[in-house]
């Protein structure tokens, strides 16, 4: 298989740690929009992702065969992260989170509150309210947010385990449209930053990782590719590649003057 032939790894010990839990993949995947449970299973396998988000509203725990959400996820290797997609306000999100906990047996939740059905943009106010209450109730909360640096800090302050800012509106495959704001979020964050939504190509994923994101999430780009498992493999490589570039410190932009400045170098000559 193609995926076995390309094996790119750094020797650096570089795990992703979220709320004390260690993951050796920095690639999250979403499970919506796939054409069959079989394709989804193969995609998860070739992505080597360890955090798999699942829409609670689609879960059919009473019917494992038809259940598009949990079908074929190896629960020993992966964390099934229930998401609250479809929730329009904090109350609905909290109810779904509780149901997610009952279904998965753990208290991690990807918090999504999207009252606008056209662009599915996250509601900052309701997301914040829900995060506060869920954290009080003992949940580990990973909120999906707009690329808003102040909101990101505030969510971090109330105890969110990560922040998950969007790169572009969900499902658009348009790449990183929120670059300037993402940079600020990444620079300021004390919790992992997972770039979520809008990444359409492996190069977008690599770019996010090169910017210093801790992880990325992809779904539509994989599910709607002609060959989802192959695309998942491509994304996984891009995530590793972008991460390695970030770790190498290559090409970082700096606002400080450097000694090699060709114009003002004479000032430092003897």
């Amino acid at each position: 298989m193609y995926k076995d032939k390309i094996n790119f790894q750094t020797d650096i010990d570089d795990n992703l740690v979220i709320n004390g839990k260690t993951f050796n993949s920095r690639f999250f995947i979403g499970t919506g929009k796939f054409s069959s449970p079989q394709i989804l299973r193969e995609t998860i396998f070739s992505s080597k992702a360890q955090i798999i988000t699942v829409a609670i509203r689609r879960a059919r725990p009473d019917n494992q065969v038809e259940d598009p959400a949990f079908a074929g996820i190896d629960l020993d290797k992966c964390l099934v992260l229930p998401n609250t997609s479809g929730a329009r306000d904090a109350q609905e999100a909290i109810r779904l989170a509780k149901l997610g906990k009952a279904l998965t047996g753990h208290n991690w939740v990807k918090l999504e509150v999207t009252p606008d059905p056209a662009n599915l943009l996250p509601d900052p106010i309701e997301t914040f309210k829900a995060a506060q209450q869920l954290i009080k109730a003992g949940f580990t909360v990973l909120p999906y947010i707009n690329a808003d640096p102040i909101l990101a800090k505030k969510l971090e302050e109330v105890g969110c385990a990560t922040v998950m800012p969007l790169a572009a509106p969900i499902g658009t495959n348009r790449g990183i449209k929120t670059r300037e704001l993402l940079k600020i979020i990444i620079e300021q964050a004390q919790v992992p930053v997972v770039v979520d939504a809008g990444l359409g190509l492996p190069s977008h994923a690599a770019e996010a990782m090169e910017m210093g994101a801790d992880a990325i999430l992809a779904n539509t780009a994989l599910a709607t590719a002609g060959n989802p498992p192959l695309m998942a493999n491509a994304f996984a490589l891009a995530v590793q590649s972008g991460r390695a570039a970030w770790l190498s410190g290559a090409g970082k932009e700096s606002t400080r003057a450097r000694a090699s400045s060709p114009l003002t170098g004479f000032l430092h000559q003897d």
Partner: protein
Amino acid sequence: MFNPQQIHQAIQQKQQDLNSFKILISPEAQDYLEEMAKKSQNLTRRRFGNNISLYVPLYISNYCINQCQYCGYNLSNKFKRIKLNMEEIAIEAETLKQQGFEHILLLTGEAPSQTGIDYLEQAVKTLKKIVHQVSIEIYPLSQADYERLIAAGCDGITIYQETYNRECYREVHKKGPKQNYDYRYETPFRAAKAGMRSVGLGFLMGLAPWREEITAMVKHAQKVLQANWRVRLGFSFPRLRPHLGNFKPEYPVNEIELAQMVFALRLFFPDAELVLSTREPARIRDGLLSLGITRISAGSSTQPGGYKTNKDQISQFDIDDKRTPSEISQLIRSAGMEPLWKDWDWAFNREEDFS
């Protein structure tokens, strides 16, 4: 008359407007259906993925005080009227649940003395104990009544204007409260204000020239969206079918035109749910599945109690695609897509202790 250059440009335009829409639904654009289909398919796939949602209609009463010339429930059609009691509704719903359904569309004729808000509220509550998602396709209600049904667990309505042509509207609605065009036109606004998540629009294809109808419907939809940013929009494509009384549509819509409407609406509203019922023959449903349609019904009966309790009632209209739900599910799979039986959870509107 539009030239090829204009048509091509309209199809590829990023954001459609009423001018480009006019081109998309023009007779000349029918030579470009393949290009429209391609764009429609891409937009649908990006927004909805490779999934097709399944729902099933449940008729709970055929009492009606309207005289709609195209409808089998017309007051002047003489047959024994019935309505299901809560026990029968539960039996029907259990039968549908066993077939896999989690989304029931509840339907009645218009007869407030038989199927008033109390009855409807009870019906929604009864269904909601059995399946995860309930929406309604019934006569227009007040905002306050919609609020009651939402509290009972209903989260969507479908309301067809039937025709946007006032003159034709007057002609085909001979008697009854349905004669009030404006109250019907304002229904989606009241429902959305009440908090209905999804609002489905449609017009009965065949009553008036379709190009004018669909343009009026698009304008209607735009107004609904402008007034209610939280609402999820949907469109259905009901073509008039034979029924008791033999109404003959004056402006029949052919299959090419139907496809053109599906593609044009998808291009205009990339996020809208596009619904095709079992009124349509299997060949058309199968063909349009991957090209823009996102929700279909299966194994439908259009008579109250038609699934279990009462199988020999009068139908509202005849269905064409008579395949069973599991056959439809197989078909979706063989078209390279995944049937979505459940896309909602009662946890959204039910206080419950899950721990």
